[in-house]
């Protein structure tokens, strides 16, 4: 009952039972531990990865539902994504545990909306809890990348 997954551009056969949440497959079987366990019920965002570019909570998705989709984890960003550079420049992380999930949510936001407004950043990041309270820097880092690389959208030009 192997499931075939495409993770960070690589095809991987996983043996975990089909009802196993993607998070535990990534962490325990594939050995990618960047996505974190925080709540297990889709409430905190620590486990966020991208499925076909959409941010998903990997703790709450059975691996069988991901078959054929392109999964991107923090490891797939390569360490040189503009958001990662901004995170380092602004020293966003405190304990850091939530940050991989934060970055994945932000990456999905900027991919679909390169110049988000404050309110759009708030809305996109609302599902990612940071108990250390690094929100201010998370917000600033997203804005920094949006300003540096984002093309003005029709909306922001108007």
């Amino acid at each position, binding site marked *: 009952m192997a499931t075939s997954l495409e993770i960070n551009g690589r095809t991987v056969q996983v043996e975990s039972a089909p009802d196993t949440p993607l998070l535990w497959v990534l962490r325990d079987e594939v050995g990618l531990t960047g996505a974190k366990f925080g709540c297990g*019920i889709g409430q905190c965002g620590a486990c966020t990865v991208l499925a076909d570019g959409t941010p998903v909570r990997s703790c709450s998705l059975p691996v069988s539902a991901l078959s054929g989709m392109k999964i991107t984890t923090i490891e797939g960003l390569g360490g040189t994504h503009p958001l990662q550079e901004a995170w380092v420049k602004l020293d966003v992380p405190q304990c850091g545990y939530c940050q991989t999930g934060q970055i994945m949510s932000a990456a999905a936001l900027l991919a679909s909306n390169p110049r988000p407004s404050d309110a759009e950043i708030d809305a996109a990041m609302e599902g990612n809890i940071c108990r250390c309270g690094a929100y201010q820097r998370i917000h600033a880092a997203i804005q920094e990348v949006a300003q540096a690389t984002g093309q003005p959208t029709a909306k922001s030009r108007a």
Partner: protein
Amino acid sequence: MNSRVDQAAARSGATRRGLVVGTALVSGALLVGCSPADLMSAGAKTEVGAFGPFIRIAADGAVTVVSKHIEFGQGSHAGLAAIVAEELDADWSRVSVEQSPANSKLYANTLMGVQGTGGSTAIANSWMQLRKAGAAARAMFTGAAAAAWKVPEAEITVKDSVVSHVASGKSAGFGDLIQGAAAIKPPAEPSLKAPEAFTLIGTDRVRRKDSLAKSTGQARYTQDVNLAGMLTAVVAHAPRFGAKVSGFDAAEARKVAGVVDVIEIPTGVAVVAKSTWAAIQGRNVLKVTWDESKAEGRGSAELEAQYTDWAAGKGALPDKLKWESFESRGDAAAAGEGEVFEATFDFPFLAHASMEPMNCVAQVGGKGGTKLTFASQSQTIDQINTARIVGALPGSIQIETLFAGGSFGRRANFQSDFVAECVQIAKKVGKGTPVKLIWTREDDMAAGYFRPLTHHRVRVRLDKDGYPATWTHRVVTQSLMKGSPLAPRGFDATTVEGAMGSPYLKATPAVDGQVLMPENGVPVLWWRSVGATHTAYVMEHTLDHLAKKAGKDPVAYRLTLFEKAGAARHIAVLKLAAEKAGWDKPAPAGVTRGVAVHECFGSVVAQIAEVRLVDGNPKVGRVVTAIDCGTAISPDQIAAQIEGGTCFGLSAALHDEMIIKAGAVDRKNFDAYPVLRHSEAPKVETYILPSTNPPSGVGEPGVPVIAPAVANAVLAATGTGTFRLPMIRA
């Protein structure tokens, strides 16, 4: 004893004092009834190189600073490294940080006497120790260069890891001189830099060293540990505090693919499996029956009602429970003509809810002895508790301390609760097999160790000028130190710190402050900023009610009281915050401002919050903060801690509330236990008071001021006080 860092002791590098967590952890020493450092490190094998336990220098000149303190977000790793780099004159870009092993002799917190992190002391206790270590290593290099070049040592300079002699034109890197340097005896009292000579400390160059690892998923947390042959365990825990296993049926659990064993331990029944998911699945079908005869039967509502009665002088106290005076002078009950303010304040139990739930990896019974691989906040206590279970010398218990995904105090407690649980399982599994204990969020929240539910009752009578003439204060809360080997005689200062010793009480002629510390079955613990989590709120919100009655401006009113109390640092931070916030100018339309000032962990913080009411609920915008934390090592990380601390405090002000019903936790995950989210985060500005005093706490002092500042802004907007937290109840 209170939580203030003893500036003189910190300055002189003196060891041990009775600050809060000091009291807590020193008691670990009394556990085995011996001098902590020597006996508790018995059995330890730690290699120390030529430059001492805190510094390693590689052949290529790269400097590694060994941190005895855990890094759980507070930024200590970078701060500690900067202290060494400053005195060593090392090239900051080539300094890295490594976590020390557990060794209570080499790596004791100098303010606690044992190894551990807490009470916002990481920088404060290390200040002189690491300056001396850095300066001694520097002297070894200058000595080696002087010998090699046959020039006077006094003429040698060091900059960015390069040792130079200008007159002869000679220069060499640390790497080139390392053999000579290592052969030189380090001076016991090396000369230290004057603060004016600092080139790194206090600059924006002191930045975190771990941001890249934490932004790429490479940083290693307990949750990420994966050792060869490792098993994962989850535990079925008692549904009520104080319940015990009376029986269990593991037949179904054992049928789950991947489940290896089901084991009874003192705290429940563990399902041990080859993967996390298998362990969780196994637990889902495990049947456990519980003996609840000794379980706590009360809940938050009953406790609050009881505390309220006692504080009002109603109802008899149980045997042995009595009021303890924490501050008393004059006749506070004396009648007078001035206006009276009287109020009660209620605070719920609070979960730490760090993003990484509690977890641990233990290996017991193998050839290498007992080894723990996890984020240990109090290594010595964890060693002692582990040693008791496995029957070994505490110092022989090896701990590899990893990053923690937050803690806020939760990872340090006298019982080493989750650590002991993991060790119990690993002991039964045996053979040195690594066992990773994972707590789900539900396990983490249901385990207790909460900030205790707390009730205050305050009565203040003003004099003819509108300043406090009498102040009567009652606090009812569980002791944080009870159950520790050093249960304090009299009262536990952590329950009242911040009220006790407050400049407002100092400025009041007649004071009667008393605390009652009842026991119940809910385990409680320090929670980021400890007693100040409630005392700062009560003192600071009360102050605005008093100023209002007196018809005075809240800032001016405070300044007068601080003058009376001789609280110069309070005055300085309050003036700075008021100036930066533009207190004397009108707030933006629809916005009111609230102020609060509090001293804890040796630092004084003033905050002014701008608040707007949206659907009747406070929405916090700009927050201006001024802090006096002594010498600022890393201004950027101080700002980060103030930003984060403010969010942590605001979360408790607005949302956090753990509810217990009939001895059981009613809120077990973030759906039922809301916390502050992105859109609610304020814009925090941080201003640091220039100071050459030794550094004091930063991780906690940013937490307690925001709640009263917000309540005071709401009071200004609506005329209504807020006497219960959280402000928005789920």
